[in-house]
């Protein structure tokens, strides 16, 4: 338990870092270690290849996508959106995070071909942030009504929403 609080990688994760840096080298734009967790930043073009290697490699064996999420940094004007994938290896009990940064309107290839569980995650990321995933079988609203306007988890979207509390004009025509 105390191990994960230190900013030191476990030997298994050090091996993961070594293998990924030797395989991808320059394509890993940024590496960070924080609280025993390893994070790599890749370019959107390399997203699928890196994730596929993480899954198919015998030694890495990241066979589960724990979650895929988006993030919005309005302060970063050139690449405000970020998509992160938290990977887990069940045989090796290791974890890894791969992130990528996207410009406004830039789309990302889908990971549903690698892990089917990415389907719902990517739909949610799209509907909350507006990041389009190319190749996704059904990129439509998941948690919100299909006619919802706006992308709620962006920082410029108000918490109460565009409609407000009691008088739900967005129900018009649906009753």
């Amino acid at each position: 338990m105390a191990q994960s609080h230190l900013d030191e990688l476990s030997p298994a994760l050090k091996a993961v870092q070594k293998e990924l840096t030797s395989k991808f080298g320059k394509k890993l734009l940024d590496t960070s270690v924080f609280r025993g967790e390893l994070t790599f930043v890749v370019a959107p073009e390399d997203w699928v290849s890196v994730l596929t290697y993480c899954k198919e490699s015998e030694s890495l064996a990241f066979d589960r996508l724990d979650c895929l999420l988006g993030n919005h940094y309005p302060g970063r004007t050139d690449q405000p959106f970020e998509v992160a994938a938290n990977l887990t290896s069940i045989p090796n009990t290791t974890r890894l995070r791969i992130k990528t940064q996207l410009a406004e309107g830039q789309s990302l290839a889908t990971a549903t071909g690698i892990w089917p569980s990415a389907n719902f995650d990517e739909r949610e990321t799209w509907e909350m942030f507006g990041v389009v995933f190319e190749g996704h079988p059904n990129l439509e609203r998941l948690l919100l009504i299909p006619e919802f306007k706006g992308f709620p988890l962006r920082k410029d979207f108000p918490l109460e929403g565009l409609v407000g509390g009691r008088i739900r004009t967005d129900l018009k025509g649906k009753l």
Partner: protein
Amino acid sequence: MSAPSQDQAPPAFTVLRPTLEELRDRKARTRQPVRDDREVLTVSMGPHHPSMHGVFRAVVDFDGEVVVAVRPEVGNLHRGVEKLAESLTYHQIIPLTDRLHYVASFAQNHGFCEAVEKLIGLEVPARARFIRTIAHEMTRISNHLLWLGIHIMDFGAITFQQICFREREYMMDMFEMLCGARLTHSFCRIGGVAKDLPDGFAERMRGALDFLPTRISEYERLIDQNRIFLKRAKDIGIFTSEDCAAWRVTGPALRAAGVERDLRRNEPYAAYPEIEFEVAVEYEADVYARYRVRMREMQESIKIIRQCLDNMPDGPILAKDAAHVMPRKKDVMRSAAAMVQDFMQVFVGPQVPAGEVYRSVETPHGELGFHVVSDGSPKPQRLHIATPCFFHCQATTPMWEGEMLADVVGIFGSVDVCLGSCDR
């Protein structure tokens, strides 16, 4: 078939553990084939339905009685917890996490506090870790009791829900004694727990733990060899370990597929490194195996709570960290330093460092992950909650395909979904 281990005496009966290939074959045999000349009838098993799993909608294509395709529709209970969490300090988010999977509230509190403590790098005192373990295992027992009641009720034995609620009331009484609330506990705090164990809690808990095993054995006697349950649960809903990994199905469903993964063992937290317990694993990967896993988990939880009560260390229940921890009220009323600390924590919030962590805990229904992104301010920049139920709802797509209509609700119940946790 796997051979029994060489260095032990062979068991009295042969334990047959199906391999992955065998399970794949079994799955192919037990699922109905899809005919080429099928006529598909689309049925909306709409958000309001008699099974008690919450407002889940599945638009199912049927070929006769056989499921051809499933399109789950979730979001009927979406509140925007992640958006709301960005406008609250870390202390204020704890009651939000309660209401995710509301049947096992403390488990979510615990997961969130573990994630934030990892971010801060905070060490929780020993007594608090043991109390957290006790409360977490209490939620495991109460969650599995509720699950059992509803699951068996889905199969038609309606009295079981009443029976399990009777046992659950004892657990909820214990929670009321511990933290004042029956259902939404909000008992965990960053750096420890909210209150110490009250006087008389240990005796009452031991009393409850003494008769719970007899009740659980009674249920096992009623259900384990029950012909109707066996017919409805054996070889139904087989979901192998590779399916579980691909579809991010965790918890009892993963352990029922033969994978010995339990975060209490693999990535220990709280008092689990110091407690002896067995990870409940079954190998058949069907509805019956998931039922067996949960029954054994209940028995293990009882053992864990007993060990925690026996080995409860003395000491503080909150870490000594003025920058991140809410002090105890009695200290606030007596000491100026604690009053200032309380003021800062309430009006400003904890001074967490900037960074990003992802921490998972083993809740009763699966692995719950909190991805906390902090930019150094007392409110999170982004909080993403990877709930197991979200992925279990998605997993209805592969799980229901090829199964018959009559089995669909049983399979859904066996993965224990709660829509509040799915939709956040």
